[in-house]
């Protein structure tokens, strides 16, 4: 079920009323039922996968609490990963093996990549399952003994299909307090505000730019270098507005129910270096990899070469998490290279000029750093968006041809470019306000007519969105 849909509005309303008026025990059950409806709405066939992973997590948590051995831990991790490996990676790895060996491996028809439709959000709830098992193994959390409560933790609909990847230690205690919060007005107001923000980012910004970007990538050869440049910038904005918008809708929905989810973003496009970017982008995924992969591998405590290896391995996994495709691997490799270079630069800088390394840079340098970081990230998004590495290369060549006078092979110009630039300007204003001010406090401090006018203006802006709902980008992961 899409967050930006009438049926979700109905489901969320029922959930809010449930938490408000039913006793806690029933609230938990009804919310679980609503979560199953949410997940199974478009394709009920995927529900068993969610239940399967829930069962593994529940039984696994109890089992590893009793038999705390690495063997049991790895068995449970592999079992949790089994669905993900089958649905997401089997076809890809078969293709990679085939490409490497130069032999077309014969596969039974049911193993065909095309035959497997990826269950929505599988990467998110698989990682959540693994984190729970590891946390129990590490004794960071106690195993949850109530199957209903555990399943609600797994399937809680606001965070089910695209995160944030919640940890048991953060979410389960809140679910146990469901309906007992006495800050209902505050929750409703904050939830409403976050949802409004999310709708603006998703419908007004992301979905509009998606029209341009999809059209460009649908026929790269026919487009001009200027279109390539605009599509590259627009996708950079689109993916952020889409994912941040989704996250705000998730946070807002949960907040209406009195639940506080972890935020996934901290103004990533204001990052002044690539390391900062990854600390601000998809925070629950990066902290997941940090806690469960990077630090266990030794983090940055070893020699520089070892740290670079750890970074490269983690970024390869991050890339593969996003999708089983060479494009994601190139994207991940690009980020790994930037992170490794930045790490080495930091080491060198602290050795050569330790005092300077501790001092913060001036405004001008910081501004330049911000722009460079943004453009590096934006450039690498080309690989993330392009359907193939060849297509990404085509886009890059097109960008290059635009920079070399006389080499342009401009063919057509995209229509309504002015409108998309207007949307971009709206986004920039939003991003700056979001970074520089507490928008919620500012809005609430305004008079009632002004607040109402601002809210009405945002709602009316949705008339400028495309008619057909555009799926959230991160739903595919």
């Amino acid at each position: 079920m899409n967050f930006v849909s009438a049926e979700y509005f109905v489901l969320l309303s029922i959930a809010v009323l449930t938490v408000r008026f039913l006793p806690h025990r029933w609230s938990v059950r009804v919310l679980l039922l609503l979560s199953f409806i949410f997940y199974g709405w478009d394709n009920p066939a995927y529900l068993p996968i969610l239940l399967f992973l829930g069962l593994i997590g529940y039984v696994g948590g109890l089992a590893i609490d009793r038999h705390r051995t690495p063997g049991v831990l790895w068995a449970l991790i592999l079992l949790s990963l089994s669905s993900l490996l089958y649905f997401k990676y089997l076809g890809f790895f078969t293709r990679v093996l085939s490409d490497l060996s130069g032999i077309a491996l014969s596969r039974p028809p049911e193993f065909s990549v095309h035959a497997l439709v990826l269950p929505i959000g599988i990467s998110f709830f698989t990682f959540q399952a693994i984190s729970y098992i590891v946390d129990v193994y590490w004794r960071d959390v106690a195993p949850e003994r109530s199957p209903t409560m555990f399943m609600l933790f797994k399937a809680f609909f606001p965070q089910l299909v695209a995160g944030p990847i919640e940890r048991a230690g953060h979410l389960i205690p809140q679910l146990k307090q469901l309906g007992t919060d006495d800050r209902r007005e505050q929750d409703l107001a904050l939830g409403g505000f976050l949802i409004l923000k999310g709708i603006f980012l998703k419908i007004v910004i992301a979905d509009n730019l998606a029209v341009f970007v999809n059209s460009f990538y649908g026929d790269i050869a026919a487009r001009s270098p200027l279109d390539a440049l605009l599509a590259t910038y627009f996708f950079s904005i689109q993916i952020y507005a889409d994912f941040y918008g989704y996250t705000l809708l998730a946070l807002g929905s949960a907040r209406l129910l009195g639940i506080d989810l972890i935020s996934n973003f901290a103004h990533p496009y204001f990052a002044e270096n690539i390391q900062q970017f990854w600390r601000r982008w998809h925070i629950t995924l990066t902290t997941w990899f940090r806690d469960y992969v990077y630090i266990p591998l030794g983090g940055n405590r070893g020699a520089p070469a070892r740290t670079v290896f750890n970074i490269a391995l983690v970024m390869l996994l991050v890339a593969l998490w996003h999708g089983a495709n060479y494009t994601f691997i190139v994207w991940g490799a690009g980020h790994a290279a930037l992170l490794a270079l930045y790490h080495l630069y930091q080491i060198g800088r602290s050795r050569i000029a330790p005092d300077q390394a501790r001092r913060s840079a001036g405004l001008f340098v910081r501004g330049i750093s911000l722009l460079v970081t943004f453009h590096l990230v934006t450039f690498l998004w080309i690989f993330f968006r392009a359907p193939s590495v060849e297509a990404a290369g085509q886009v890059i060549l097109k960008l290059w041809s635009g920079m070399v006078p006389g080499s342009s092979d401009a063919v057509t110009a995209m229509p309504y470019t002015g409108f998309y630039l207007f949307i971009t300007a709206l986004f920039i204003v939003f991003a700056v306000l979001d970074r520089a001010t507490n928008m919620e406090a500012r809005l609430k401090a305004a008079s009632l007519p002004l607040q109402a006018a601002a809210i009405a203006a945002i709602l009316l802006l949705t008339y400028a969105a495309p008619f057909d709902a555009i799926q959230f980008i991160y739903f595919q992961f």
Partner: protein
Amino acid sequence: MQYSSSISSSNRRFLAALAVGLLALVAVDHWLYARRGFLDLFGPATQEGQILAKLDKAPRFAAAADIIMFGSSFTRSGISTQPFLDKGILPFNFGISAGGPLFAYYALAHIRPVLEAREKKPVLVLEINEPAGETNLNQFEHIFATVRTRSALIRDFPDLLQHAREHDKTSQFLAGVFLPSLRYRAYGRYVLGGGRFHDGSLAGNEDAGGYAAINSIRPDELPAVEEASGPAPYPASTMTYIERFLRIAAELDAPVVLYRFPNVKHWSSRRTAELVAHFRAAFPTLNIVSLGKEDIALTRDDIQSCCGMHLNANGSDKVAAALIDKLGLRGDRENLARRWRALVDETRIPAPALWTGGSPDTRVAGADGGLTIDFNGTGKNDDVLMSPAFTVYPGMAAGWLNLDMAFDLSAGHIWVAIDDVEDSGDVRNASHVRLPQGDPAIEDRQIMRHGGMTLVRIARTEQVRLRITQIGDGVEGRLTLRRLWSEPRPESPVRR
């Protein structure tokens, strides 16, 4: 946990502001949708505009028409007006782009009171070809253009929801029940982008009978038609709405033709027979006639040149003729002009004598105020004549024209082009419309603009294109006649 009263009050104020903001959205929705505010603002060049233009004039035509045809563009651009008029039969083509049985039902319900009042009921033609059952032919636009109140949407909620679910439009439909004006999201970005939208799908190219001609000819031979291996079941909601349509027809006691579009790739005569038998059994008192491929022999010259399967004017004539033959329709030629005139509001535009441009040598003013053009004295692509500016269509968006045209009363053929239109197909820029020759009711007028209809009479039209140019801010237009060919016009519709 307690929190301070100031926090509480600011939260309450925000929630109140949220409620007011939502109410503002509902108010805008009401104005845009129920009051047709979007059309008022931006003109009728949308699919909704096309549907509403037809719905608005339908009661007038339903009161007089001998035959009313319901369906998609296969009907709208596939059953021509002229063969009926030649026989003295008054037709009304109620076909709408992408209109399926769902739209047909609501369209029939819309004119039902008029039909109930008539002693002699018209023949109702319902297109039931397979594409109407395909999943991509959703009736979303048609639902919201036709069913204009939430109460009506809710009354038919189960059937409409089923249709939406079958066509993967559930979310849009449910959202539309809350806020029907969300439909305008399809156009909002074009409006804000400062451009135009062309979702009108041939808006403006219909003749007075509701037929929108296509003039190109298929360049290659027709592919062989394959006998379909098995029945292609209609979606349940399509069957529901065919049955609802037939129920009204049965209650009106109006004869019905179930029409299956003849230019199909796959054909199952058995399927047609089964379908007709099914409906005959369901409505035993209804006179159901079946018309399909077996009744209409098509050739390459009857099919449009472009990508679609539509019939051109030749093919449309054949379908109309087949209908007349199959039903044994006989009209009243003597009274046709009187009946026709009753349907039309008249507004005169500048007399041709006032037109300028081109060489004066090519023009001969007639005693009746009309003008005869001698095209022998003109060159290819010459502008022959240009009218003074005149009011075309109040409320029309700049640069776009929805003329709802009917052209050429006496000379057989005329081309109409709307200037400065981004043409994506072979039809939008050109319309080929014919009206009864020598109709005494309109013979004395050369060019007229009537509420929703423009009529043109030109003595020799074989090599003329009529262009609408210099459209002002929705109120003024100018007509230009331009010679198109240096050679005599071919007999059949023009190849592009």
